């Protein structure tokens, strides 16, 4: 009984149903007169679930019963695989992992949906500001959480988590709350000296996803000098395949996400000349579809996450002329749904992470004015947990660092006041990118790590 499992326990709250909270148990009796107790690891979650029951029952007592509208899209929670993320590994689900990729309701009855999204805003429905301080506290607390099963199962991608959390802090002007030396020393323990790649955490195998995140984090702290740049860039370049595509690691998984990782990483390291850029570009172009979008492989369905990767890689290599900006721009702006949020493909649910992938793509092709920014801003702000900080995939779901980053990043792209500007291609603050490309030229590092 968890978000990952498609065989969820289903109970009819609106039938003969009674419940009682006895932390850490939520006891209930259903219509079949069965008495069950749901054990919660976290007392707060137990109470939150009980509150949700209460609110649902309360709301239903006010709303006239409507016949269930036929669902036209997937009935499963929108756990989209997020391709990048900065590239992320693992499905997008709360607790999230990879981007991605990645909620059950897909009722096509708008007033029903609107009723609940309004009803659920945690602290009163109308405050529309960004609770920046709370998000900072949330991110810092994630780093310190001790009793957290979610952190446990995500330990293999902590490098991505570091990127999301630290970049968000920087966007909120709070990168100074973290000690760079601690971060860098941990990161270098994730480095594989024999091959030049970074793993997701200490003791994990090297992979392109984590190598990019590591390089991005080092760029944030202006500590790229700790790298053996030749070695790292050789590792990345070595993952290019004959057809121009990139594998994520020695095991050969190929995906346009990895094209982006490689190109972004090498560009930051000023070593793009180590790969065959023309072939890399040609491969990406072969993944372009007739709707103007891009998939993970040639013929793969256009998906906003993959589009970000492809457009980003093309932007970085100066190859945006391959993109039909008007056609793709239209496809991208069609991702905006009635709730103001963005989805990743036609007829899928909206999700805060697309605020990044769709928006950054639109900016790179200079078509961002084609979406309704106000509505998207409100959607993102509604996904905040105003009490505890953090942002979730959609209103009233559990927050995670992944969505917190994408929500804040999306707001930054829309020039929300108080945030640092974010570069849409490098997914790093603009001042960091400027420092990389216009700062003091650094000679290739002679330091071995």
């Amino acid at each position, binding site marked *: 009984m968890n978000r990952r499992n498609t065989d969820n326990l289903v109970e009819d709250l609106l039938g003969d149903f009674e419940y009682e909270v006895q932390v850490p148990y939520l006891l209930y009796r259903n219509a079949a007169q069965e008495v069950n107790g749901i054990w919660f690891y976290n007392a707060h979650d137990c109470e939150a679930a009980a509150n949700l029951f209460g609110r649902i029952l309360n709301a239903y007592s006010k709303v006239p019963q409507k016949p269930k509208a036929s669902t036209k899209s997937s009935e499963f929670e929108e756990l989209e695989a997020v391709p990048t993320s900065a590239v992320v590994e693992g499905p997008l689900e709360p607790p999230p992992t990879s981007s991605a990729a990645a909620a059950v309701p897909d009722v096509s009855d708008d007033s029903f949906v609107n009723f609940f999204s309004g009803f659920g805003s945690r602290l009163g429905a109308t405050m529309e500001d960004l609770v920046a301080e709370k998000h900072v506290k949330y991110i810092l607390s994630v780093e310190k959480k*001790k009793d957290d099963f979610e952190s446990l199962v995500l330990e293999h991608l902590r490098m991505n988590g570091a990127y999301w959390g630290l970049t968000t802090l920087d966007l909120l002007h709070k990168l100074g709350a973290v000690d760079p030396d601690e971060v860098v020393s941990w990161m270098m323990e994730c480095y594989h000296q024999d091959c030049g790649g970074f793993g997701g955490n200490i003791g994990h*195998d090297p992979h392109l996803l984590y190598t990019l995140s590591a390089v991005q984090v080092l760029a944030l702290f202006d500590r790229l000098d700790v790298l053996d740049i030749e070695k790292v860039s050789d590792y990345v370049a070595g993952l290019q395949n004959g057809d121009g595509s990139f594998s994520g690691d020695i095991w050969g998984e190929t995906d346009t996400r990895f094209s982006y990782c490689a190109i972004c990483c090498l560009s930051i390291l000023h070593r793009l000349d180590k790969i065959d850029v023309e072939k890399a570009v040609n491969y990406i172009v072969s993944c372009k579809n007739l709707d103007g979008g891009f998939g993970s492989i040639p*013929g793969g369905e256009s998906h906003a996450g993959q589009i970000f990767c492809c457009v980003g890689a093309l932007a970085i290599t100066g190859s945006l002329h391959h993109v039909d900006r008007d056609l793709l721009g239209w496809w991208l702006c069609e991702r905006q749904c009635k709730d103001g949020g963005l989805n990743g493909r036609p*007829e899928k649910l909206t999700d805060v992470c697309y605020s990044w992938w769709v928006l950054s793509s639109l900016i790179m092709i200079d078509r961002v004015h*084609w979406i309704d920014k106000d509505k998207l801003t409100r959607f993102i702000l509604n996904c905040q947990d105003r009490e505890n900080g953090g942002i979730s995939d959609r209103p009233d779901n559990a927050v995670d660092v992944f969505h917190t980053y994408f929500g804040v990043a999306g707001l930054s792209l829309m020039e929300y006041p108080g945030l640092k500007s974010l570069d849409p291609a490098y997914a790093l603050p603009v001042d960091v990118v400027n420092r990389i490309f216009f700062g003091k030229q650094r000679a290739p590092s002679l330091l071995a790590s």
Partner: protein
Amino acid sequence: MSSSDDDDERIPFIQRPEWSDVRPVPQDDGPHPIVPIAYHDDFRETMDYFRAVYLADERSRRALDLTTEAIGMNPGNYTVWHFRRLVLEALNVDLHEERDFIDEIAVHNSKNYQIWHHRRWVAEKLGPQAADKELEFTMMILALDAKNYHAWSHRQWVLQSLGGWEKELDYCCKLLEDDIFNNSAWNQRYFVITRSPLLGGLQAMRDSEVSYTVEAILANPQNESPWRYLRGLYKGDTDLLVSDNQVSDVCLKVLKTNHNYIFALSLLLDLLCYGFQPSDELKRVVQFLGKIEPDSSDANLATTICSILETVDPMRSNYWAWRKNNLPSEVC
């Protein structure tokens, strides 16, 4: 081998005689962990033992079973999967068994990149004889979630690398019958008609596909996918798109219903920009929608369409305004 299915029955590794020679290795979070973690005991223990065999590079049967347990607890841990592959290779395990293992765990982890990649690795090794099972497997996953991106990628790879195209178009038809809004199924349909070595290619399939698509559009004109699919059938050949009456006809039919006509208007707009000459009937219908006097000299059709769209699709009003300001000069 201990089962990881039921926590009540799980025997801690420390109590298992077959593991008594191994010293577990705790997670090293570094001297000043930036994200210190307190682990669930079972999980911690399993991962401590995994780390021990991983660092010792022990490629044994018990190591394989250990990776099974570790995967059961956290299928996202890619390092465990890597090591599992090394062990499978070292033990020369029958990969049909491995495929069965993936069958069992994939259903509950259908959006996990590692599992899909592992599946592909196994299928590649099994070769073309694996095609049927792979198509069956993806079909099973798609039955639970017909838009699972991983499943579709895998399926496309199977078709192109291992074959099995015979029933693919029928499969797309079936999925679209289940849910005509399934964009992934429409994408796959396009994949099949353009790439299948058994069909005649796009040109040969075009007429039948246009009929199919028109029917889908008329049933649900607010469905984005068939409209895009329709355009795709002309693959950038705008002259063909403009000259095929079926295309303008479907726009007209939808517009006449006065309902869900946004995509119809936008396709008509594009047709006009490509040089399409609209019939009087079409002009009248659009003018009616735009509440414009018939025979008004102001009736530049394309401009009217843009204005209507700005009103009925306000979310994208900037886009429609841009279209209005960027109409080719000779357009109607």
